[in-house]
């Protein structure tokens, strides 16, 4: 997948508004593979909705969203399964980890599906992100910041053309945020993928090529 296009897209809940001031909604926007984008938003401007549309979780929008020119409304279940497995990495804002599994198992459950990373690589990530000692800790007992790092590793344990990171560093200190950004960009560059990062306040420090205000 090389291109994500939004054509005149607008969440249904905004359909009755008199005016929309946004760089994304009701505009034609294109995200291209190999580039780094930031979507900055205030609360309630539809940031989570945008992410949900792109990952095929929701489709309550007007207008058209295309992946490589294909309207994603026509995607079938198996198309979405393939996209989530092979083309689109997604770090959820609400993380969507499994609290009853350990940190490592949370990454492994994804990696078992894709067979993408070696166990050693994952262990190195844990070390680099400063939670090497928490690998076999149940996620339910970890802090939100620690969980965010686990969720990032899980998002990276797959091949992707785009990485969608929904508020990836909201609960991290600057240093940990920087390390996470490095690991993420390493993987992104290795795969030649595009990145779409969202933020409400605290943003991940990256060299953004384009910043959209939602």
């Amino acid at each position, binding site marked *: 997948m090389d291109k994500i296009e939004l054509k005149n897209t607008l969440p249904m809940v905004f359909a009755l508004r008199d005016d929309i001031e946004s760089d994304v909604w009701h505009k034609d926007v294109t995200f291209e593979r190999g580039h780094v984008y930031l979507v900055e938003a205030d609360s309630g401007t539809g940031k989570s909705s945008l992410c949900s549309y792109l*990952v095929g*979780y*929701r489709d309550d929008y007007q207008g058209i969203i295309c992946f490589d020119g294909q309207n994603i409304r026509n995607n079938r*279940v*198996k198309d979405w*399964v393939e996209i*989530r*497995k092979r083309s689109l990495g*997604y770090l*959820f804002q609400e993380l*969507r*980890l*499994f609290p*009853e*599994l350990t940190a490592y*198992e949370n990454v*492994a*459950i*994804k990696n*078992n*599906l*894709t067979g993408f990373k070696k166990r050693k690589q994952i262990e190195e990530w844990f070390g680099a992100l400063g939670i090497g000692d928490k690998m076999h800790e149940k996620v339910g007992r970890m802090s939100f910041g620690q969980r965010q790092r686990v969720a990032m590793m*899980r998002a990276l344990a*797959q091949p992707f053309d785009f990485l969608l990171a929904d508020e990836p560093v909201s609960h991290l200190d600057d240093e940990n945020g920087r390390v996470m950004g490095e690991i993420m960009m390493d993987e992104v560059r290795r795969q030649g993928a595009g990145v779409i990062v969202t933020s409400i306040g605290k943003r991940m420090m990256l060299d953004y090529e384009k910043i959209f205000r939602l």
Partner: protein
Amino acid sequence: MTLVWKLLRRHLSLPQLAGFFLANLLGMLIVLLGIQFYFDVAPAFSGNDSFLKGDYIVVSKRIGVVSAMSGQNSAFSRADIDEIRAQGFCKSVGAFTASQYDVSASMGVEGMGYMSTELFFESVPDRYVDTNSKEWKFEEGDRVVPIILPRSYLAIYNFGFSQSRSLPKLSEGVVGMLELNVRLRGRNGKEGVMKGKIVGFTDRLNTILVPESFMDWSNAEYAPDAGVAPTRLIVEVNNPADDAIARFLQQKGYDTEADKLDAGKTTYFLRVVSGIVMGVGLLISLLSFYILMLSIYLLVQKNTTKMENLLLIGYSPWRVSLPYEVLAVGLNVLVLVISLGLVSLLRGYYLDTLALLFPQIEGAGMWPACALGIVLCLVVSVLNVCAIQAKVLSIWKHKG
């Protein structure tokens, strides 16, 4: 898979599954035992005398004092036969054909005494006779005629005749080895000698039965001019216990050998009772199926978030539903295997008794229970899998 299972087995309720398992086991056991029992026991009533298929009755006109004195005709006319054929209870009608010539049979071992008796032959259409077709056939030119005798003849000989004459008693097997010399003497003066071979005994027909092909040939050969309407009819009926039959016979003044209906009635009631028992079993199975479905729905409901997350990180609905499908199908198969084992165990108890009471019947084997069990298990499993798939897809569509 193991990690997915580790996730999805949460909230699995063992008491619920145990409840399903026991209920399903009980239901399955009753159904399978019901059908197995029916197939094991039914031959004791219907297969005991396996020369005649299905349920049938033999109908004749009543011979009363008046009709006997007045020489009233006791034969059935075409119209009579058509009328019976038109009745709702009747599946088919066949006529008894009697020999139109004199028959005498003699039996003797060389050097020993000679026994001879006058006989008659009758035949019914071959499709009413269900015997080994290898033995039950006659072609023109054959020297041997197969014969089926009423079992009561043998009893009369063994317990009456041989007793008083100090003759040896004969078993069915021994009689089967004897050869009769049959002499046929036509009214046209033609004579012939043949060998008769007794191929079996029947409790259900009071006649000396020969194959239809023999009867056609011999009547044409020894009594070419005679053509007599049948005095007895064999009527295949849907259900011998049908009271419409009794009413019709009463109304027309026909006779039937009432006790000959008993085997048919017994099989019929056996079928009804087995049907009821199996119905109860099926009902229990149905309820247990319902328990399993509720239990799995509840499980899916409680694990909805987890399943949604699995779907969002790229697991297909098929892979997410697989653990529950394996669980359901596994339980069904386990129930099937255990209930088949129990059926075979329980069957052992009544088979011994059955073998004592009816030594001549052969066991039907376990195939009825196996076949029905596999079919039931398949149907239930397919329904389970479809329901689980549908449930997971509804989670995909956020309708869970």
